[in-house]
């Protein structure tokens, strides 16, 4: 579904991604872990099409198409969803209104019939249940006055409504207490399916107790330095990132 080859990206003059290679198949959940500043969030933003980052080398093939030439809205319409680390507050636009506009743009793009108000409301009702969300929040301006937990829950709720093929969740777990974390994880798990892939970016292994990944990758200084199964996350938890960093440095010396 997604193939990232030798991806380099920079913001301003700072190279942040320095050669990422990653292959994600439908049905798989990949966790990307790494210390602060390793480039985790940049990877997520580049995949979603944020203009602040410049791709200097490499390519990203999504379902056989060149992802990097698509506009952010076309990526969304093609089935990519980014769960924001810091969801934006937008006064004056309700979640319901903008989500309906988004969903219908996606449906239209795929040649499907757009939803009218009644059908959309029914859909929303169903999805709020999964996330135990207070429906009244959705009629309020997007994320305005929401708690940190409510904002993250709103991200997963939007994902549930838009039903992406590839979900990139950027530190959806950070700043959540354990109860909120469980709700968010439950929402994520409810969306796991053989047709859908997920890239779960996290700083902490705690989330992976609830959303069990098929693969774990460790990102250091803009490169994936180690990949493995679920056990790798536990090792990281126990030994810290310094261990992989040292390992990576040694590997580089050996290869040089």
């Amino acid at each position: 579904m997604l193939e990232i080859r030798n991806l380099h990206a920079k913001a301003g003059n700072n190279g942040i991604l320095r050669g990422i290679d990653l292959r994600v198949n439908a049905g798989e959940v990949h966790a990307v872990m790494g210390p602060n500043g390793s480039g985790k969030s940049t990877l997520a933003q580049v995949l979603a099409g944020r203009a602040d980052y410049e791709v200097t080398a490499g390519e990203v093939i999504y379902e056989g198409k060149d992802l990097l030439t698509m506009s952010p809205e076309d990526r969304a319409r093609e089935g990519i969803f980014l769960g924001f680390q810091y969801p934006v507050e937008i006064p004056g636009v309700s979640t319901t209104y903008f989500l309906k506009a988004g969903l219908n743009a996606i449906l239209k793009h795929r040649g499907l019939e757009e939803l009218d108000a009644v059908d959309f409301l029914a859909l929303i009702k169903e999805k709020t249940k999964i996330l135990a969300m207070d429906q009244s929040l959705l009629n309020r301006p997007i994320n305005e006055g929401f708690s940190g937990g409510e904002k993250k829950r709103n991200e997963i709720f939007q994902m549930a409504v838009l039903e992406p093929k590839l979900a990139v969740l950027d530190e959806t777990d950070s700043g959540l207490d354990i109860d909120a974390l469980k709700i968010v994880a439950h929402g994520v798990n409810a969306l796991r399916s053989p047709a859908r892939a997920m890239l779960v970016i996290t700083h902490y292994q705690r989330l992976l107790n609830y959303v069990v990944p098929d693969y774990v990758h460790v990102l250091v200084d803009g490169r994936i330095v180690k990949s493995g199964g679920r056990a790798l996350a536990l090792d990281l938890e126990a030994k810290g990132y310094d261990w992989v960093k040292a390992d990576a440095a040694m590997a580089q010396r050996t290869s040089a």
Partner: protein
Amino acid sequence: MAQVSEELDRYLLDFERFETDGATRAASWVHELRTAAVARFAELGFPATRHEEWKYTAVTPIAKVPFTRVGHEGPALLSGALEHLNFGLSEGARLVFVNGHYSREFSSLRALPGGVRVGSLAAALTADSEGIKPHLARYARYEDHAFVALNTAFIEDGAFLYVSAGEVVGDPIHLLFISTAPGTASASYPRNLIVAGNNSQATIVETYVGADQAVYFTNAVTEVVVGENAAVDHYTLQRESEEAFHVATLQVHQARNSTFVSHSIALGGALVRNDANVVLDGEGGDCTLDGLYMATGQQHVDNHTRIDHARPHGLSRQLYKGILGGQARGVFNGKIVVHPAAPKTDARQTNKNLLLSGDALIDTKPQLEINNNDVKCTHGSTIGRLDEESIFYLRSRGIGVEMARTLLTHAFASEIISRIKVEPLRASLENLVGTRLNNDLPVEATP
């Protein structure tokens, strides 16, 4: 004075014609008022930009055009065209003025409670001149303001509304001013007087519209007297032609514990100047001034507000928002004067501007004159572009970039629109603002 001469002479000549044959036969005090006002106008002349209150607004484009007052003989209207000027207001009374003159044919005064008198100022000047004498021109001072002086010189017609003490008028009263643009460059001088008795309540909507492309000059003055414990909700929808000049003063006088809310929506006009002045002249007066101005092309929109806190425990809230595209220029000047006799004043003023193009310009200036220590006064203004973070957030959900920009601009305006209490009016303005955003105010992509 440098300009004087020709430009002013035209108006003085127009005034002579008006007094000799055009004007409604009026009581001597009205005649004296007009004469004093025209003399004052001749002294003041059109304000120059060196005048502090006119620093950012040059009125030479108005002075240059030979505008003359239109008499009753203005062209007739098609009544069919009136319906879409209703702004959803089908319930209440409607007074229609064509080129400044009351039109009985197009007006409808149905369904008003007994304690309400509503009609044309011209009729009131003839029938009950003594009744309006205590109020007319008592609040809007022509001594300091050339355009108020000019309007006062030509006092003849407009709306007169009197709500008796304790009377509650449920449906909004719509005052519709239409300029039909006959061949010549026409000027109209609507003069409105609204008196709300103690404990009364009323909603008034003033709308100004004109034929497309027409060049004309509307110089309006509305005086509102809000009695003790009375509540007045006032709306101004300005949709003049894109070539028109519009200068208007709203002068409000509030008694003890009264409430006044103004919603000023300015969409049209080539050169627009609005003055909204409120005097809180009774303890515990409460006033809100909301404004939304949208301009594009070469439009110039100037909003001046002044709130005088003259008594204790007054509360004032101002929120003016501007959306400017093209090469439009906006001005917001908000003055708050707290008098020594007004402790416990609570005043807040906010002006927010959204610039949609690189060439749009806004001058925003708060002016606070505080002569009492025991007060709470805040002001703030912002000038900005659409937030790129928000645009990206919307796009990441599949919304196209154009729509994302329109949505955010609409959201900016909706803070003012959503505060409109008259439901059909709010809905029709939502549409109007949306259409204007889609057609006339494209958001330029940020480089």
